[in-house]
């Protein structure tokens, strides 16, 4: 609670930008202080760096073929080659781009949808709220993956855009529910009523008063949505319902399964992409341990009882 109060020397210009960044710094510090989320942040940073610098890191091109097919690991190909004669390690490195991007974009979009629906649902009352309630519950109950499979089969030709769309369509409901609950809690707080007395329009109350107070919950929702987006993307690609011509961890698995990597005994071809998916998802899950601790002080790490 105690932040340094060093205002005496502060000039007017320095005061001008609102000091809400203090909140963000504090959150970041809390995240970093939690060893689980620190580990998560480190892993995530590694993946992001690999994704960004893939062209520099990868020994070969993503779909550069012409090497010996189904080769075992060797100094030239650390993880061997695929049935099409591509370098597995390079594919893994380039594959991180897709997973990171899909996770980020799909996570962001479904968080935005969840935010818009969750906030308005929490703020409005009466019939409209009932209708939203019903729709959200419907989307919560209907099994996601079967729905995804059908929609993926419907939205053909879209490749990644389609996959992201499918994930967003099926993935926003949970976040909306959580955000609604939080909105309802916040809207009964006096500062919301006070904002109304200050003549603030509804949208401003929702987005300027309520929304910023849910940052950690939204962040948690984002990381959760990104995790399931990464897993869903891999699942759809694995089933061959995505764009099999791109190089992602899901398609590596798809091609590996397709070319009987299990039979050639190249289990690393199955193991490595799956492990990458799991590790990336794990990093987000770990970060969420820390985010949970921000939104719920009881979950903070403390000394043993």
């Amino acid at each position: 609670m105690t932040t340094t109060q060093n205002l005496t020397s502060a000039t007017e210009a320095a005061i001008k930008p609102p000091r809400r960044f203090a909140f963000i710094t504090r959150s970041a510090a809390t995240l970093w202080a939690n060893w689980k989320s620190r580990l998560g942040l480190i892993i995530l940073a590694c993946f992001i760096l690999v994704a960004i610098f893939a062209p520099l890191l990868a020994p070969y091109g993503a779909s550069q073929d012409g090497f010996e097919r189904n080769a075992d690991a060797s100094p030239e190909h650390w993880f061997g080659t695929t049935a099409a004669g591509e370098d597995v390690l390079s594919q893994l490195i380039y594959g991180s781009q897709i997973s990171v991007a899909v996770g980020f974009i799909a996570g962001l979009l479904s968080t935005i949808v969840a935010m818009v629906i969750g906030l308005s649902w929490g703020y409005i009352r009466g019939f409209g709220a009932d209708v939203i309630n019903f729709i959200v519950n419907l989307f919560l109950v209907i099994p996601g993956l079967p729905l995804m499979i059908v929609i993926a089969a419907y939205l053909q030709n879209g490749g990644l855009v389609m996959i992201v769309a499918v994930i967003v369509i099926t993935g926003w409901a949970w976040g909306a529910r959580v955000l609604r609950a939080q909105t309802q809690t916040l809207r009964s707080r006096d500062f919301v009523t006070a904002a109304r007395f200050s003549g603030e329009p509804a949208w401003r109350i929702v987005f300027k008063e309520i929304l910023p107070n849910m940052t950690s919950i939204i962040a948690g929702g984002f990381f959760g949505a990104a995790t399931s987006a990464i897993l869903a993307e891999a699942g759809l690609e694995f089933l061959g319902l995505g764009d099999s011509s791109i190089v992602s961890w899901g398609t590596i698995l798809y091609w590996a399964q397709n070319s009987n990597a299990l039979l050639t005994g190249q289990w690393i071809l199955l193991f490595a992409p799956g492990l990458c998916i799991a590790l990336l998802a794990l990093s987000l899950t770990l970060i969420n341990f820390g985010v949970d601790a921000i939104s719920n002080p009881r979950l903070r790490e403390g000394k043993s009882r």
Partner: protein
Amino acid sequence: MNPILEVKNLSVVYESSGFNALQAVDHVSFALEAGEFVGLVGESGSGKSTLGLAITRLQKPPARTNGGQIFFRGKDIRELDAETLRQQRQGGFAMVLQSGMNALNPVRTIRNHFIDIFRAHGHVGKSGWDARQIELMEKVGLPKETLARFPGELSGGMRQRVSIALALSLEPQLMVFDEPTTALDVLVQQAIMDTIKSLQKSEGFTAVLISHDLGVVLESTQRVLVMHEGRIVEDAPSRDILENPQDEYTRMLLSHYADPRAEVVELPGFPDRAGRDTGGAARTAGATARDGRSSDSAIVVDHVSKVYPPPRRGEQAVTAVDDVSFTLEPGQSLALVGASGSGKSTIAKLITGIEKPTAGTVEFGRLDVAQLGRRQIRELHKNVQMIFQDPYSALNPLHTVEYTLTRPVVNFGGLRGPAARKRVLELLETVGLAPVEQFAAKLPHQLSGGQRQRVVIARALASNPQVLIADEPVSMLDVSLRAGVLALLEDLRAQWGVSMLYITHDLLSARLVTENIMVLNGGRVVERGNTAQVLQHPEDEYTIRLLDAVPNPARARGAAV
């Protein structure tokens, strides 16, 4: 005679990763004799609750005892292992928690709560369970049928009584009551305190009463420990505290108590109304400040009722407000007094248009509050502003003071940029938050409770309103801060010529800031008139009960004598 509890140099620290450690209890020493009833008094943050949890070994992370000893019956309980400690709780020390209403497991019946305790300690034979339960319930004044209920089916007061009965069932030698009545209604508070007092006498346990309210403590206890910033600043018999307080802090606390029935009611910095009536100059200044507005409007509440639909099917509808009429004239201050559930907050909601009356009309000038469109609601809010009870919840923790104040200035005053900022700084000046530029840049968590409430008041004034609705504006503040905020309200009202509806259960503050008063009970007005007159010569029985419930060290003096 050996003390039953002896605390030596006890220190408790809060350690949370990412935050600076906070020494909540700092080298505290004291001793309790068997059978004593001792009060532990302090304002919020003084460490009194932390101390209470430490001496019963209930503190949890991030709190940690980092020094000192606690001898209970000669043994240092800090060194007990978990099982010995657990057994110690029967026939040893018990605790009644601050929020007694949440202290019961919502999915277990009251009977099962008792049985859990009997099972854990085996001190009551199975055949004796029923009789013992009924006996305990009788002791705290509850019918035995309550045993079959779930906590959710009981009122707050009943739940607190159950907590006490459960603690009693341990047959403790020492009982710690941590703010046992804080969240309860005034009248219930008094009843529970009476129960505790009589139980302490009849059962003969040693009792510690932790409270922020010196009045309550002085009324009940024989000895008082005054805590301030983690230390005990005074430890003396109640009578000495009252008549001859040694510490400056204790004296300050005491000075904030007064009897609302007295002829002359004064608090530090807050002279009696009668003495202030000559402040005509201020009035005139206010009148000039309100230039450009030809006629101020009154709020006319005419035969208003509000009935809420039954909470559950098959139950009775709830009549929150029952045929209430009054007029709040421009410049007038009116107190709306009653216990919780008396309908006073509903009236505030009806006046501000948040709720619509079931019958009758609320008018503000030419506006019929119940029939307002969106634009008219804006106009209403421009003129009728609200001051909230809880300053911690009334300010958005993420917005600076400047942002919070700029919004109404922009929305209602139509000012932009430097003009708006100038106005914001003026407002801060008005509520006494100087240096204004520093305060403008602060976030709520950097302000004290009193400062926050001043910001809330500044915000209410930003639209230059004609009416202020103040809903218990000081009840969440520490006693020492109340007078300042009340004085500010009173000054502003006088200066700006604003009329004020002051909603409270606290008769003392009503006496200080209002001219007229209305006492509400069950949604009906039971008594109204000039504040001083009504409080000095109450006619309705309900008003008298309210007055009796006001904790008053002065009355304690009478009791002690």
